[in-house]
């Protein structure tokens, strides 16, 4: 009799509707997200001599190697842009996407210990990865801006364009596409680990299928459409167009990437939510 009056705060059941995403709970745990980001940041450079400088070293050296191999040895086109600037722009944007996808695709395996011992909305963990990487991306953007300033003062031929206004959209697409794909992969790998092997070298290959080391304009006509199918291509192209003034940006390509990102994100969150409830038993 009295029981019917009781309002339960929490009901635990075997299955839950696929489309329940508890935003209120996510919001309540926002402090935890901040703590994870802080942890990632602080633990990254603790007990290193160079400290946060490591954020710069990786893109600088990758760019130098690209300049040497693709620019000087292979003489690949950079659309008339200074090679260093061309590669650095591509690498900075690509790294963010790539970090987001590789780190989120490992979220269940890497956090099995903590997930197995305490409950919090699991989505906090991949979200914190996206935000941590965003901080890192921000720092690397500073490097890009300084490089642009240096080449600008030297009188190199490039200019920023109106597309700079799209910057927030581009960053969101990179983050959410990485997140969506990462969530799908991590959910699929809790029971069968096959996909984890794919992601390691898959990201390497995907980079060559994206216009990081060559401009879309120099790609052979018959491969162009295939390369453009890759949603990251239009993002990198738009990114380069915004900052350096060279790159192919069309309304259609941006809409295409946005649409694909939303699809991936929705699927990713759904399968993640479903996997999250029982993955402790199988991982």
């Amino acid at each position, binding site marked *: 009799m*009295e*029981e019917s009056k*009781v*309002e*339960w*705060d*929490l*009901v*635990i*059941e*075997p*299955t839950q509707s696929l489309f329940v995403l508890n935003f209120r709970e996510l919001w*309540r*745990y926002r*402090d*935890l997200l*901040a*703590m*994870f980001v*802080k*942890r990632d940041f*602080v*633990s990254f450079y*603790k*007990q290193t001599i160079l400290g946060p400088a490591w954020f710069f070293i990786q893109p600088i050296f990758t760019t130098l190697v690209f300049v040497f191999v693709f620019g000087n040895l292979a003489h690949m086109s950079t659309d008339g842009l200074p090679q260093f600037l061309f590669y650095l722009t591509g690498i900075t944007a690509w790294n963010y996407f790539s970090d987001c996808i590789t780190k989120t695709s490992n979220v269940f395996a890497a956090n099995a*210990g*903590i*997930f*197995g*011992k*305490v*409950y*919090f909305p699991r989505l906090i963990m991949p979200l914190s990865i996206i935000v941590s990487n965003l901080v890192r991306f921000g720092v690397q953007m500073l490097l890009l801006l300084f490089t642009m300033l240096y080449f600008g003062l030297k009188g190199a031929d490039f200019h920023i364009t109106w597309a700079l206004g799209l910057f927030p959209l581009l960053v969101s697409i990179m983050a959410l596409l990485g997140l969506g794909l990462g969530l799908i992969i991590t959910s699929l790998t809790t*029971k*069968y680990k096959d996909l984890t092997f794919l992601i390691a070298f898959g990201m390497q290959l995907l980079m060559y299928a994206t216009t990081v080391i060559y401009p879309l304009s120099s790609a052979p006509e018959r491969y162009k459409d295939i390369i453009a199918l890759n949603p990251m291509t239009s993002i990198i192209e738009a990114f380069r167009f915004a900052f350096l003034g060279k790159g192919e940006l069309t309304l259609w390509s941006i809409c295409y990437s946005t649409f694909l990102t939303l699809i991936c994100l929705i699927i990713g969150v759904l399968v993640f939510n479903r996997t999250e*409830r*029982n993955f*402790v*038993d*199988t991982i």
Partner: protein
Amino acid sequence: MSSAIQVENLSKIYQLGQFGTKTLSKDVERWWVTKVMGKEDPFLKIGEVNTRDSKSSQDWVYSLKDINFEIEQGDAVGIIGRNGAGKSTLLKILSRVTSPTTGRVNIKGRVASLLEVGTGFHPELTGRENIYLNGAILGMRKKEIDRTFDAIVDFSGVERYIDTPVKRYSSGMYVRLAFAVAAHLESEILIVDEVLAVGDADFQKKCLGKMGAISKGEGRTVLFVSHSMASIIALCRKSILLQNGSIAALGETGTIVNRYINLSGIGKSEYMEHEIILNQAYEWAKFKTIRTSGNSGITNSFSINEEIKIEIEYEVLRDNEIIHPSIHLLDNLGTTILATFNGTSANLNKDPFFSMPLSKGNYKSICSIPAFFLNDANYKVSCFLVPENASKMAIAKEILLFSVSETGEMRQEFHGGWVGLIRPRMAWMTSKL
């Protein structure tokens, strides 16, 4: 009183063995039957009761089966049972770490669960940073941690090292800090797995005290799993006894703990002639029955305050045979703790049959191990029938296995882990010099 937790028909099945290609085909089959054909899950039906020691042919077992109970607000409830009885699974479901296979749980109030001390501690971060991180993981808002920060540091007693990375902490300090954070969670329901097994005795006492205060003083609901009956008795008014994934008993802690102690958990308490595996036989004397018994008859689970009788019945097969029944007491790992026989100078009683030539027939020798002598542990017994010239004898090695459990009677003052193969009451006296 309204209920804080209501558990209805809760079950959980687990998949055994390795996951591989075969698992995939079964997964597909399961998906096909349940989702496409709309029938009942075939693996749910064949799921077996989870008994660890019997070999199973099925890949699926019930870790919990049809659990029903209700806990009222402000109650402290202990959950006891052997390893594998389903205690941890139950806590995991209640803490939402994993979800049930069938059934449901209704919870009123905020739940904080402590299945492990220091979950998410990062070795590179300082004590201060880890308090915030761990607090946030356990569900505290930053404001709440700010408010309780001083109390946490004070309780942990590591104030001097609060800005040192925790990787430089001793393991004791680490545990202190971690428990301190958990102890200051502000939730209506607290779920605690066996976390008091760590840390020194002093700190364990402090933890128990804090948990007592949480349940009794602050009126919060506490669920507590422990193997230490002493802690359960000290903390919980009610208890739930789990056995093979089902509730075997539920009620007042005293009754339930006794029930648990009397549960014959480990093998048999009595072995008949044909069940006794001999390591060596003696042609003129043979074992008939070997058993352990206590206050309530034949059993192999004893309380620490109970006299343990080891009974050997044997048959002498020719006249004028002199037999010395003898036993070895071993610990769980097989180390011999003591050896004893009925020799007059080694006997508290006087055995009229000692060293007497026996006529043909059956005899029974009983060796009594006094109460308050053994520790809270498992023990094994080897039995011997040694004739006058000890060159040949009947030997049944490690034939009996029995357990001794805590009742709380020797635990008024000390609640920590009690080391030692035996735990006799000793004579102590202090005087001022």
